């Protein structure tokens, strides 16, 4: 259900860690809770984010939620195609990446959940 190629937060973000960078999105569980996603707001490239800090906003038809950075670093890339088609978060949550962060503290990975631990949280 939850891919083993990435780590997860209790706030329902995922991060794929490779080459000193982390690619970030939200989980299938999160998109189901939100309902139809209609709006996304991401930080500008170059913004520094800290683990656990709000880095963006996601809105469904009904409600606003915040996106929390799973790891600290500098935003190197933002998925602008996704902001144009926010409903992709519902149809392909584990493929719909939001931002890429150049990790400033890769050791933070140890604080995250693996896919089995996360499956226990997401219910």
């Amino acid at each position, binding site marked *: 259900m939850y891919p083993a190629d990435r780590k997860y937060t209790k706030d329902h973000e995922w991060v794929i860690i490779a080459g000193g960078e982390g690619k970030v999105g939200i989980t299938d569980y999160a998109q189901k809770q939100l*309902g*139809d996603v*209609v*709006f996304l707001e991401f930080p500008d490239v170059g913004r520094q984010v800290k683990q656990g800090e709000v880095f963006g*906003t996601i*809105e*469904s*038809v*009904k409600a*606003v939620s915040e996106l929390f950075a799973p790891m600290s670093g500098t935003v190197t890339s933002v998925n602008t195609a996704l902001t144009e088609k926010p*409903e992709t978060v*519902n149809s392909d949550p584990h493929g719909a990446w939001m931002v890429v962060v150049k990790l400033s503290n890769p050791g933070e990975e140890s604080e995250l959940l693996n896919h089995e631990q996360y499956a226990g949280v997401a219910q």
Partner: protein
Amino acid sequence: MTETPSSLKKTPLNARHRALGARMVPFAGFDMPVEYSGVSDEHNAVRTCAGLFDVSHMGEIEIVGADALAAVQRISSNDASKLALGQAHYAALMTPQGTFVDDMLVYRLAADHFLLVVNASNIEKDFAWIREQVKPAGDAVAVNNSARYALLALQGPLAREVLQPLTGVDLAGMKYYWFATGEVAGVKTTVSRTGYTGEDGFEVFILPADAERVWDAILQAGAGAGVVPAGLGARDTLRLEASMRLYGNDIDETTTVLEADLGWIVGWKKDDFLGAAVLREQKANGVTRKIVGLEMIDRAIARHGYGVYEGDRAIGTVTSGTQTPFLKKSIGMAYVPIDRTEPGTEITIDVRGRRARARVVPLPFYKRPRS
């Protein structure tokens, strides 16, 4: 599947919603379906086909007696003397300040018998208020019959052709805001051509014990045509596109009927009614603020409670807002000073600390194509 918290009331269709996989939320003390397949799907089904809503949580208060008309005339903004038997209208349940205790539909069941359909969240408050206010009217008694009705709403352009084969009531001959009694799916009902979506549609009052039978029959009859069950989420986005006011968001005890731009539900020719003096004064001298439609210019969604600004000056409040599934626009309603109500006026909304531009637009946002 999670259990219903015991403190929540259930409609007679609770088991159906759970079997259909609805996401359930607490709403006005009820365990209610917020969505089945998804708000956007359900919303668009209602605009293009039809959707079936369980609105059994709504309240039903009846006023009966020789002086029932006088009692209704006292508490309602609208002129109930104009209602024929079998006719209904929209009205405000009035405070003496010209504001809303609630909004409601008033049905004339008989010369001396009215049915008020009120918001679920206000049933107890409304009933207490109505009971108090009908006393001076003489021979009239108010009864809270909310638990004795289940209520379904079939809404959408295909509503009539889906419902007609299930009933002997002549639906094509029924005018908007009229109703009739008759059988649907073999059980006794009252069918009215009313709704809260901006589409053609019908609401069906039934005994709670018959609710599942009628619900199943309508869904089955409509399955081939694409009729889907629809939840509170779609109900909210649909009513907002149609710019229908929502109690607790757009109207409440602090907003007058004229500030809510609902002058058409005031029976100006009536002698006296609660709040009449305030409304007559506001009609003569004008209101200082009024509700308007707004459309976002900047990429953002306005939400209930967000501040409206002109420069650094707070000038009003957003009452409802969303990104609507059918129009695909970021729209909302807000109270603003009367000199900012002209369509085209630019205002700014405080979206969680960021200022986003919006423009005043005429209401409604959506009007159904007339066939």
